[in-house]
């Protein structure tokens, strides 16, 4: 062998052109996902929503706060595709601006939940024993706090603030994330490749970063796609209660809440925001389901 390995070493160690590219589990999952029409539909819709939300200020001719009291509420027309609200503001524009808030809350709050939850869950699950007991009991205690009262308290202490909303929702959602990640880590901890990593002398931090967390990502991604709609709903719920976003800013929850008030005279003010919210939530759920199927290793065995 020494002979052959030396010759290959001379040819710049290995002829890189001949190297067969492997398919990682991620690529495998992506291929499977592409075959799932419903999930891909979900992915397209969500991407479309995100792009629209990002481009809103440049593509809409109206502003979300300027009122036209003379116009008042009008039904959908050529000038205002989805009609106007009681203050004469273009509904489509308000929905688009609303999507900025709603999606931002959805993604950012989930990101907050994700970072805390994954870190907390991994450390807790990996070290086990007393560390685990302490960290998980903390989670249990936080779980026991009533969510709405928690948010109201935060609002009272810090004042209303969109950033606070992210923090508040994230601070609640990470609990479930931490539990899920911990469960995953506990089972991965038993795998022989973790023992193998220990016997190689890898430091704990590296084992967690390189061996544990990448293998929990499948579950985490699925949970994320299911958390985002949850968070968007939470924001809607808080706004509906008057605890969330303040007018003249708009969010889907806020729009629906106004829509309900004027439901009988101007039904479109309720219907359109509700449809947009539902379609987005459905799409995210389809995507989540699709991802679960695609990332489930059992699916690849057939």
């Amino acid at each position: 062998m020494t002979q052959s390995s030396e010759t290959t070493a001379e040819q710049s160690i290995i002829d890189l052109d001949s190297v067969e590219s492997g398919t990682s589990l991620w690529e495998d999952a992506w291929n499977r996902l592409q075959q799932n029409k419903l999930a891909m539909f979900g992915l397209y819709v969500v991407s479309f929503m995100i792009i629209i939300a990002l481009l809103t200020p440049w593509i809409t001719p109206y502003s979300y706060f300027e009122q036209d009291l003379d116009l008042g509420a009008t039904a959908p027309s050529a000038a205002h595709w989805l009609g106007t609200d009681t203050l004469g503001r273009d509904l489509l524009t308000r929905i688009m601006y609303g999507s900025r808030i709603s999606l931002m809350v959805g993604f950012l709050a989930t990101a907050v939940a994700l970072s805390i939850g994954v870190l907390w869950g991994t450390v807790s699950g990996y070290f086990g024993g007393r560390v685990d007991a302490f960290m998980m009991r903390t989670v249990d205690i936080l779980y026991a706090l009533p969510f709405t009262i928690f948010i109201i308290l935060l609002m009272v202490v810090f004042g209303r603030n969109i950033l606070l909303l992210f923090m508040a929702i994230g601070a609640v959602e990470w609990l479930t994330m931490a539990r899920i990640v911990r469960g995953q880590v506990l089972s991965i901890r038993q795998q022989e490749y973790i023992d193998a990593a220990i016997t190689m002398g890898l430091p704990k931090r590296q084992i967690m970063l390189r061996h544990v967390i990448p293998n929990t990502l499948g579950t985490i991604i699925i949970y994320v796609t299911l958390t985002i709609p949850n968070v968007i709903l939470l924001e809607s719920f808080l706004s509906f209660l008057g605890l969330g976003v303040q007018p003249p800013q708009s969010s889907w929850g806020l729009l629906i809440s106004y829509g309900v008030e004027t439901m009988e005279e101007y039904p479109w003010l309720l219907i359109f925001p509700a449809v947009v919210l539902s379609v987005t939530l459905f799409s995210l759920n389809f995507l989540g389901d699709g991802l679960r199927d695609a990332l489930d290793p059992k699916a690849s065995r057939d």
Partner: protein
Amino acid sequence: MALLTVKDLHIHFHTRNGIVKAVNGVEFSLEKGETLGIVGESGSGKTVCCYSLLGLLPTPPARIESGSAMFEGNDLLNMSEQDLRKIRGNRIAMIFQDPMTSLNPFMKLGEQLTEPLTTHNDISKQEARKRAIAAMQEVGIPEPERRIDCYPHEFSGGMRQRVMIAMALVTEPDILIADEPTTALDVTIQAQILDLIKKLQRERSISVIFISHDLGVIAGCADKIIVMHEGNIVESGTTDEIYYQTKHDYTKKLLNAIPSSAKPESAVFHAEEGSEPIFKIDGLLTHFPISDGGVFSGKTDECCKAVDDVSLQLLEGETLGLVGESGCGKSTMAKSIMRLVDITAGSITLNGKDLTRLEGEELKTARAEFQMVFQDPYASLNPRMTVYDLLAEAIYVQKNCSKDELLKQVVSLMDDVGLPAKAIRKYPHEFSGGQRQRIAIARALALKPRLLIADEPVSALDVTIQAQILDLLLELVKKYQITMIFISHDLSVVRYLTDRTAVMYGGKIVEYGNTEDVFNNPQHLYTKSLLSAIPIADPNKERTRQRVAYTADQIA
């Protein structure tokens, strides 16, 4: 007329990646009281074939394309689910591979044993219970009257398999399908279960279809055998024909794959005069505290003595075989040496360093000198890393080196274990079990260890692959002068591979000596019993030999 005649059976799996022809024109017949052995490696279609008889295949993706299976004038393959249900468990019963998962843990044995009786026959509960107790008696479960009200977890693996057999027999079936019934069991237990199946068959003249990958197991119990490979029957005939007048190359390959001989002369280790042992274990104790499982309970004084006062010594380049049944402490001993579990007392010295005293940076550096190959190559490789990442990580963690140097070393490692360099960017799931184990071996060798522990490295692999991996280990150990501890429950493998053998029972080493001495002239009763339980791939020897039985009291 034959009891069961299977003709021209074709079963295809329609998967996303195309059609997999799992069974391709299989034919066999089974007479009353006859035992048919179906032999083949994993993926040969032997299990699929038998599952189809009872309508147990998942359809889709499986589809029976053609064929017939005539049982008493009816075609099992074209039967309605309702009619099939009357046959399943009643006329044709099945024993599954893993007794740990095939019993319902929430049901008492009595309920599980009487269930097939009361479903298929119109008999009272008392009557069913009586027959269940009789069946338990027959399969050799002590105190059946009391134990019928136990739950499955109160039984050991061997006892559970007996329960499974009792369950299959309780309805007095005509055909018993045994799908690798002893693969998950220890050799001594395996021998008992095989004897039991043979006895029952003799006394009740049941027909048995015995599926196994192990020609040694089949040799003693089958009347005729079919050998399957990739969905085809490659050879069929009486047992003697298959073993003594082997025709097909594949069957020969299977037979030769079973190591039955001593270590090849070229690999035998010769100690130099006066050489000092490189590796020493002295009075090793590893005890696990037993807690009673309560939330606030602390540790109790009771403990499980997994490794109980073990001492041994190895010279450089020597290979030690560590044998024993599951639960005897051999894996715990490996983990103790690897510093994966904390030991209670004793010392482990490698190359003059006491491994048990090392901590932190010292331990990290020392780890390069003792490495381990794990049992299951499907679990020991991180599925998200490429071969390159897996091997480079092992090298990089111990010493910083340039990218080119790293790549060069990885390629040379892959070459050592017989993997093509072009597969360097592939992921573990793209390799077969044997290739994965090669990757695992390469990883263990990456740090050029002095001591290598191999914990059942071939037990998850097919027989023909096993032989290749064993030869590879033998070659590498010799090439790099590595001292190896080879852990196995498979005695023939140990004989083929090792210079010295230690037999472990209940955490203690009961016999220790040169491998050939231990095998030819065993001293301890337990060793004798272990040796007498190894299935031999030779029908004549297998039919006539006597087993040495032991009881736990005699050994303790």
